[in-house]
């Protein structure tokens, strides 16, 4: 971006603006001409898909707020009013509720793509770490949004998650009462969750901006994990990847809208149509599917503080991944042994998700424990060791060579 080639725009108005504030030059350099590796596959479209979902969540969220009332006596009824009375209210709510799930789906695929192709390795460590912050901020946002309809599942999710902080020695109780604004989850809790649920998506948007900025310094990683060596290895972002991303976004939206229109509550829980009752805990509380793996790890440890530490550690450990994986080879295409452990890891995450949906007893508890151990072993033992022991396959000399070999 240093002394970037200033473009000569033919339109005099555009030229006048650009010489004073070079937004048009910036857009052309970063969003159109940006040199992008020519070998990106469809796994690379999920970043654009996730960004699209963020925009959908922002727009549907802002209009839902025009009809929602953040008060313990009115929140549940105002959501029902949105569903029954507000014009297209049902559509907005289902777009927003399912949008959260599909946002997570896109982001999880995006993360596993990064894991497989080594996108977290030098020089993209900061890019990866901003991504981890985005994931954590997304989780906080989704959790607080889930509380707002004030149904039974909303209320008890708020109780259980805020109580995680009571595991902190000495100051835990004080922190939880500070979070609640009282001695239990009540109106002050609902109102501050509403405030933060509105704020955090804009923080997310700013983080996404930093994420893209950090991406545009080294440029994209690619399926072969080798650096761009010449212009031959790249294509301009527009139209090649704008169109490819757009196509993938449309296919993704088709699946998302199929849920919105035909099975909007498929991922929900019927008990959330019962208004929050602080005296009765539902028999089986489970989080939304996108939190199930973390939830399984929380319950896998038979100790309160230990469970909370393990659950948060499962996210924090991602910050250290660029330094835990010692191998210089990015893409698992050229690391046949690591590839096997990677797929085991991916299966482990799914198994954790399944275990998280079951009652924490008997065989499922055992499964969750083994899976939790493997989750951490993958980062702390397997990746550091394989970086030293594994002999990678020979790599092509350039991206162009890799592409030509396949054809």
């Amino acid at each position, binding site marked *: 971006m240093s002394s970037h080639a200033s473009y000569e725009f033919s339109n005099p108005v555009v030229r006048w603006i650009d010489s004073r504030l070079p937004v048009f030059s910036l857009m052309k350099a970063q969003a159109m001409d940006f040199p992008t590796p020519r070998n990106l596959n469809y796994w690379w479209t999920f970043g654009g898909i996730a960004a699209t979902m963020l925009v959908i969540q922002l727009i549907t969220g802002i209009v839902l707020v025009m009809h929602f009332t953040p008060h313990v006596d009115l929140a549940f009824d105002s959501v029902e009013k949105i569903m029954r009375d507000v014009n297209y209210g049902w559509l907005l709510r289902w777009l927003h509720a399912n949008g959260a799930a599909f946002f997570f789906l896109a982001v999880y695929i995006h993360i596993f793509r990064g894991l497989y192709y080594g996108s977290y390795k030098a020089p993209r460590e900061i890019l990866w770490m901003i991504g981890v912050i985005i994931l954590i901020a997304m989780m906080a946002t989704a959790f607080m949004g889930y509380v707002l309809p004030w149904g039974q599942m909303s209320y008890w999710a708020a109780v259980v998650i805020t109580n995680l902080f009571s595991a902190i020695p000495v100051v835990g109780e004080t922190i939880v009462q500070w979070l609640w*604004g009282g001695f*239990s989850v009540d109106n002050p809790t609902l109102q501050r969750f509403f405030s933060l649920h509105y704020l955090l998506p804009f923080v997310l948007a700013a983080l996404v901006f930093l994420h893209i900025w950090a991406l545009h310094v080294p440029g994209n990683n690619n399926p072969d994990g080798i650096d761009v060596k010449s212009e031959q290895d790249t294509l301009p972002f527009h139209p090649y990847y704008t169109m490819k991303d757009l196509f993938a976004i449309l296919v993704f939206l088709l699946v998302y809208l199929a849920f919105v229109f035909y099975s909007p509550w498929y991922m929900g829980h019927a008990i959330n149509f019962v208004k929050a009752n602080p005296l009765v805990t539902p028999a089986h*509380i489970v989080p939304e599917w996108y939190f199930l793996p973390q939830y399984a790890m929380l319950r896998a440890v038979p100790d309160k503080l230990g469970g909370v530490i393990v659950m948060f550690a499962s996210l924090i450990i991602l910050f250290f991944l660029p330094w835990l994986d010692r191998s210089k080879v990015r893409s698992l295409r050229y690391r046949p042994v690591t590839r096997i452990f990677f797929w085991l890891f991916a299966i482990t995450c799914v198994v954790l998700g399944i275990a998280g949906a079951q009652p924490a007893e008997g065989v499922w508890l055992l499964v969750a424990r083994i899976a939790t151990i493997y989750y951490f072993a993958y980062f702390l033992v397997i990746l550091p060791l394989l970086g030293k022991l594994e002999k990678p396959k020979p790599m092509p000399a350039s991206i162009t060579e890799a592409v030509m070999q396949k054809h």
Partner: protein
Amino acid sequence: MSSTTTQDVSRRDFLYIATGTVGAVGTALAAWPFIDQMNPDASVLALASTEFDMAPLQEGQGVTVMWRGKPVFIRHRTKKEIEDATKVPLAELKDPIARNANLPPDAPATDENRVKDANGKANPKYLVQIGICTHLGCVPLGEAGPFNAWFCPCHGSVYDTSGRIRSGPAPRNLDIPPFKYVSDTKIVIG
């Protein structure tokens, strides 16, 4: 001359550090109202007390009353439940502390200590406890679980007929709220 220069420099240093310190402390102080606004306010803190007459409770019957927005379990225990609770050796307990707000913080978790009020008065028939699982805050189910006492459906914590944690992830016995008997059956919680 040179001594004057040194003086000037040290005075500047002092002003520089002092200004910076005032700025930093001022910013920290200004942050406090924004943090403290989230704490429970005076109206919430005002120790709302709840009065309850246990006389109508039949043996084996329990009720849940609200105190400070929390459920409080009040149970008229059966003879068998009291027997089960008293005969347990302390060594078998996961949490050996009574967790009774009316007793010193290190009082052992005997069944007698679980039913005492602020004046040391107790009726072993009546057990008064905060109905919130000490794990992650769910409300345990009554007359359930291996001890046919309290069982938390969220993460499987098992409490005995004295409300003491026996297995599962919860770290503490159910808390006993501050309360006192104002007659033989009437209590004031809080």
